[in-house]
């Protein structure tokens, strides 16, 4: 049983903003999809199936929006799947689409993820009511702040590390025309002087709420041969889940994340991720998750992740650039955020990342997570097909 190699031949994303009042939901997704089609020099007729993701439906108040969006995404007469795996959904959606190609069920698949958060209030959308969860969990920050505290205590990281990440990501975003936040006057002092929201997470160490969509066109070897621009090749991809709450769960470095990364590296033949991977787009909605995930993903030993951040290793010109696009900290349409990570990884190995391009990026990791750090999806893409 051999799998078909999967290539990314089209990438498109919208202009992201706090509120895209100029477009409907259909208009928003179409903006990203059409850019991806243009990149691949394909028309809607060249797409065999559509796989979309977003999370959750309550953010826009539309139940199962794939039904309404079928027309806008050229899916009429085609198969259309809708994935929902909480915050990891953008990544999972791409992986489900990739499996359609890898299984040789379809030759060319459009995959797209979106969120129009201005249609709702994410803070309260994520504050789940009792009796389902403990009360006073104000938004995602309220859930994650204690785990960040645990990381700081466990690793002995100095309190400035979070601010360094935010300062870096917001500067990277200045080089990305699609990023939501373009803070031209950003300084490290401004980050550290910003209000404390959920101790130790400050306002400037927190992701925004964005409207936006991201689309990719995935295809088989024959499709890649017809592509006008160099494809990115999927070298490995995996999803892992673990329960939300149980006594044995390590919220600082969940086992599901470690297992997921190990599976991706095994598929891609990576034995030393720190040396063999040229950059990583990691799902960092709160700045401290950069050092935490560096450890979880095997780029640093336990308790050592913050040292990479502090030493500038993760800067755009560092030895292992992280979140070259500006990351989730600069652009966060929740359902799309994971796919933007995957797409940025592909842009990098295609050499198409513009001002935030990492020179000579050949293998780049895209990462997403969701729920209470329980759902993980990742892929590693390269500039060469997997068997070369």
């Amino acid at each position, binding site marked *: *049983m*051999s*799998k078909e190699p999967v290539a990314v031949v089209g990438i498109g994303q919208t202009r992201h903003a706090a509120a895209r009042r100029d477009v*409907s*939901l259909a208009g928003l997704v179409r903006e990203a999809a059409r850019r991806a089609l243009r990149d691949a020099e394909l028309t809607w007729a060249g797409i065999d199936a559509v796989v979309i993701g977003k*999370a*959750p439906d*309550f*953010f826009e*108040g*539309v*139940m*199962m*929006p*794939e*039904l*309404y*969006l*079928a*027309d806008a995404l050229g*899916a*009429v*007469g*085609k*198969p*259309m*799947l*809708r*994935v*929902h795996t*909480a915050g990891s959904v953008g990544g*999972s959606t791409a*992986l*489900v689409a990739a*499996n*359609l190609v890898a*299984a040789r*069920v379809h030759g060319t698949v459009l995959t797209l993820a979106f969120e129009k958060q201005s249609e709702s209030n994410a803070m309260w*959308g*994520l504050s*789940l009511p009792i009796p*389902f969860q403990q009360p006073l969990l104000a938004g995602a920050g309220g859930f994650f702040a204690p785990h960040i505290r645990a990381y700081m205590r466990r690793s002995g990281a100095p309190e400035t590390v979070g601010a360094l990440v935010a300062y870096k990501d917001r500067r990277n975003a200045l080089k990305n025309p699609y990023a939501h936040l373009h803070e031209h006057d950003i300084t490290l002092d401004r980050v550290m002087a910003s209000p404390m929201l959920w101790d130790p997470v400050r306002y400037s160490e927190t992701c925004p709420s964005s409207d936006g969509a991201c689309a990719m066109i995935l295809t088989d070897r024959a499709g890649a041969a017809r592509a006008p621009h160099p494809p990115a090749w999927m070298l490995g991809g995996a*999803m*892992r*889940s*673990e*329960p*939300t*709450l*149980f006594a*044995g769960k390590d919220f600082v470095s*969940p*086992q*599901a994340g470690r*297992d*997921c990364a190990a599976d991706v590296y095994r598929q891609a033949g990576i034995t030393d991720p720190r040396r063999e991977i040229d950059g990583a787009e990691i799902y960092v909605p709160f700045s401290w998750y950069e050092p935490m995930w560096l450890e979880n993903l095997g780029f640093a030993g336990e308790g050592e992740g913050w040292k990479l951040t502090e030493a500038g290793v993760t800067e755009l010109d560092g030895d292992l650039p992280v979140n070259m696009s500006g990351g989730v900290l600069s652009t966060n349409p929740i359902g799309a955020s994971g796919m933007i990570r995957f797409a940025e990884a592909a842009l990098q190995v295609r050499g198409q990342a513009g001002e935030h391009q990492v020179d000579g990026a050949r293998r780049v990791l895209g990462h997403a997570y969701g*729920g*209470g750090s*329980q*759902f993980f999806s990742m892929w590693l893409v390269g500039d060469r097909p997997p068997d070369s």
Partner: protein
Amino acid sequence: MTSAPRDREIAVVAFAQTDHRRTSDEFSEVEMLMPVLHEVLHATGLKTADIDFTCSGSSDYLAGRAFSFTLALDGVGAWPPISESHVEMDGAWALYEAWTKLLTGDADTALVYAYGKSSPGSVRDVLTRQLDPYYVAPLWPDSVALAALQAQALIDAGDTDEPALAAIASRNRAAATGNPHAQLRGPVPQGDHLVQPLRTGDCPPIGDGAAAVILAAGDRARELCARPAWIRGIDHRIEAHGLGVRDLTDSPSTRLAAERAGAFERPVDTAELHAPFTAQEVVLRKALRLGEDVDVNPSGGALAANPVMAAGLIRIGEAAARIHRGASDRALAHATSGPCLQQNLVAVLEGEPR
């Protein structure tokens, strides 16, 4: 393309469902789901840790809370961590995702489950939130009213009439007498018009339920099941959302999915159709070219039990179970989603020749 021969055979090897009930106030969704998960695992002798891939289908809107599926995952017992995914669709589409995963060779076994509780709210109102949010949803046209439009279009076209619809209801519910899980069975009064031309008898019961299936590839399937239900083809297609641009008396998406799934290559002996409304069976029979010799909905179909988000997966499970017990050699299963059969999935299942 989907009907092309493949070098990897995949089968449904186990199926379980709850007794479907009008209310289940005393159970959480997880509590409702757990027994069917245990039942399919027990039937195959597999444990959670033995399953290579897990995929579920459900809807936050039915549950009334965001990320509702995360708690169901806790019930699966995802420790050590599992390879898992979820579609915000009927579980039939979760099965489709699992089928593609098995085709890649990355997994040999998959657990697929789906659940839905319609009882806590008004499902007719809830389903209006599926509609175009700008122009249609604000008018709150409910699911029965939309189905009635379709039924009236069929009557106007001369494809059916009210007595014929009553006969469909009667036949399905008579068949359901043999289904211990069904919510409505035996003689059920056709009742008054709910939304003309549909009477209460033309409409599905509102209920809560869950279902689970285990898929396995090749020899693994033969080890786990005496007579696996091989998936010979599976395909799904979506149509335009706007009812005004569709011919409601026809279902081109069902026809195309059936063609791609290989349904027309040889006759089937059984068809499990996800037709929550009697008139929809008329549309589907025509699109699928089902003759009078085909045993349609021996389970009673969605008119006997319609747990939203699980009812489509149950059609595949019922068709597979008939093959498992030797009552069918080649069966068709159908699932639908969206107003007036907007999206349709067709699977063709076969048992080994006897």
